C-alpha cells in the first residue's frame, strides 16, 4: 500500500471513528482506554476482511476525502479523544464552511456540465488558482482568520507532494461530502441569523 492509499483509507477510518467516539459508553471511558479503543477501531476499519476493509468499501462509494476533510476530522477526533475543546471557534468554522460552500457552488455545477467552462481544469497546475488562494489566505490572516489559511496551505502543500491519488488541486481542497456539509451548515446558519434578525426587529 502506498502513501496515497494509506491517506485515502485513513480519512474514512477517521470518519468512521468520529461518530463512534460520541457513544455514551465510549465517552465515559478514561483517556488511555479511549485511546486504546480508537487504535483498535482504526485497525479494524483499515484491515481488509474478505479482501476489502470497511474504509476501502467507503472509499469505493465516495472517492478520496480532501485534505481539508482529513484535517477537520483529525482535529475532531483528537478533541473527542483528549476531551479538549476545538482550537477554532465558531467564527473560524463559519468562515471556512462559508468559503467552502461558495467554492462548491463555483466548482461542482460547472464541472458536472453546466455550461462549456470547466473550473475543475484549473486544478491542474493553474498558477492563477494558486495565486488566488494564496492572496485569499493572506487577506484572511490580516482579518485574524487562521483556520482557512491553514486549510489552503495544507491543500497547496499536499498537492505539491502528491499526498492524494488525484493530481488536481481541487481534490485536495474540497470533496463532495464536505461540500454538502458546508452548504448545509452555511444555509442553516444564515437562515437562523435571518430569522433572529426578523424576530429582533420591532413590529412595524
Amino acid at each position: 500500500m502506498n502513501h496515497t492509499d494509506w491517506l485515502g483509507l485513513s480519512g474514512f477510518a477517521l470518519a468512521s471513528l468520529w461518530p463512534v467516539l460520541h457513544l455514551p459508553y465510549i465517552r465515559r471511558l478514561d483517556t488511555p482506554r479511549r485511546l486504546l479503543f480508537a487504535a483498535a477501531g482504526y485497525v479494524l476499519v483499515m484491515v481488509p476482511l474478505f479482501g476489502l476493509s470497511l474504509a476501502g468499501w467507503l472509499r469505493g462509494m465516495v472517492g478520496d476525502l480532501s485534505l481539508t476533510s482529513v484535517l477537520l476530522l483529525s482535529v475532531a477526533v483528537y478533541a473527542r479523544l483528549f476531551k479538549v475543546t476545538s482550537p477554532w471557534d465558531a467564527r473560524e468554522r463559519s468562515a471556512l464552511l462559508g468559503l467552502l460552500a461558495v467554492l462548491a457552488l463555483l466548482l461542482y455545477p460547472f464541472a458536472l456540465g453546466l455550461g462549456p467552462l470547466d473550473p475543475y481544469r484549473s486544478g491542474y497546475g493553474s498558477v492563477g488558482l494558486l495565486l488566488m488562494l494564496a492572496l485569499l489566505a493572506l487577506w484572511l490572516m490580516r482579518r485574524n482568520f487562521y483556520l482557512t489559511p491553514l486549510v489552503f496551505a495544507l491543500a497547496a502543500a499536499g498537492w505539491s507532494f502528491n499526498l492524494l491519488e488525484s493530481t488536481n488541486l481541487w481534490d485536495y481542497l474540497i470533496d463532495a461530502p464536505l461540500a454538502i456539509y458546508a452548504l448545509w451548515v452555511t444555509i442553516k446558519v444564515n437562515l437562523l441569523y435571518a430569522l433572529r434578525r426578523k424576530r429582533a426587529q420591532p413590529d412595524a
Partner: protein
Amino acid sequence: MQEKSRRLALLALVLVAFALALFKASSWHFGYGFRLPESVQQAAVPVPESKKFRRGTRGGANPAPTGRLETHFLPDNGRTAAAVSLVELKDGRVRAFWRAAGRAGAADATINSAVFDPAANGWSEAQEVSGRAATLRGLHRQIGGVGDPVAARAANGALWLFYGTDGFAARRSSAIALMSSQDEGIHWSAPRRLVTTPFLDFGTRIKAAPFVYADGTMGLPVQHRFITRFPEILRLDQTGKVIDKQRLAAGGRAALQPLVLVRGEKKALALSRADNAERHVLSMATDDGGRHWQPAQKSGLRNPDAALAVLALQDGPLLAVLNDPERGRESLSLRGSVDGGASWRELTRLEEMNGLGAGLAEPQCLEVIVHLLRSSDPALRDANAAQLFPRLAAVRPQVLRQGACHFEFSDPAMIRAGNGDIHIAYTWNRTFIKHLRIDQQWLTQRLQEPQ
C-alpha cells in the same frame, strides 16, 4: 507573544506551501501539437498466394479486389465477450483485450487478452489480465466490476491498459483504472485509479483509443456520464498521471464517445456518435494542435448512435467501421474517405443480417447461426456438429430471444499494423469477438475504385 508566534508560524507555512505549489505549477507545462503515427512500412509481410482469396463485391459493379481479407474468432473460454481493443506489439503481433463476462454479468467480468500471430495466422489462448478481485485489491477500494478495456502504446514504449471500473454495481465503467506492462502484456503492474472528476470520483467512461501529443503526453478521449453527458480529452504525462482535461463540443450533450484522428502535426478530427435525431456522426476539428476544438458539426458518416472505430492512414484516406442507420446493429460496414471525411463510401459490408432474422423459426435461426459461424472462422469451416456445439450453445441464448432471431454486430476497434495490415475486431452477436485482417493491397485497390 504566543499569539504572535502562532501567526508568524502560520504565515511561514502559507508562504512555504504556496511557494512549493507555485514552483510545481511553473514546471507543469505541456505543448500543443500531435505526434504522427508511425509510418507504414511499404514492405508488408508477404502473403502466400495460396492464402489469398477473393471476396464478392456489391452487385458485381466493381471487379473483386485481390489481396487478403480474412476473419477469425478470438479464443473463447465459455464467457461472453465484448468491447474489444487492439494494440500492435513490438514484434508485429497484435494483442487484443476484451471484457469477458460469465453468468453473473458485470460482477464476475474479467479483462481477457490474446495475441494474434500474423505468421501463424492464428490467435493464442485467452489469458485473464484483470478482474474485480484483483482490481479491488490493487485500488484498495470497493468496485462493482470491471468495464471496457482500452490498450495503448505509451511514449516510453510500455503497454498501457485502461479499463473501466464501477463504483456501484448498476453503473458501467464509471471510473478508469490504469495498468502498465513492460513486457508486451505478459506481466502487469497493479492497477491505479485515474481521478478525473471532482464529484464522488465517478462518471467518466472510456471507449476510444488514445493518441499521442508531440511532447510524448497522451490524449485519452473519454465520456463524462454523470448528471450530464459530454465528451472530454484527458491528458496524461509519461507516468500515466492526469495533467489536464479538456471539454469538447463546448460541452455539447449530443456528442458521445469521442475518437480522435490525428491528421497532421497541428490537425486532428474528433468524431463522436450522436445521441440525437440526426443519425450522423458528429465531428470536431482542431487546427492548432488541440489547443482549441471547433464546435461539433454533422459529418458525412451516418450512424444509428452506435459505437464506431476510425483510423487515419498515413497517405490521407480515412477508414471507419460502423453500423448503418437504416439497418441498426444488424449490419456493419467498412467505409473509406479520400477527401478528409467530407464524403464516405462503403468499401465492404462486414456483416449484413438486417431483416433476415425476423420471422425465422428456431430451427432456421440455428441454421443461419451455424452458417455464420462456419463462414466467420476457417477453423470452423469444416467443423463437425460436436466441434461447433460449444460456440453454438454460447451464441444461441444471445441471438434467439423472445422467439425471434436478433443479430447484433457492435463495438468495433481498428488498428493499422506496421506492415500495413488493417486489423478490425468487433463484438459478434453479443457473444464472441470476431477479428478481420485485411492487407494493404486489398485496401488500396478498394480505395482507388471509382465511386
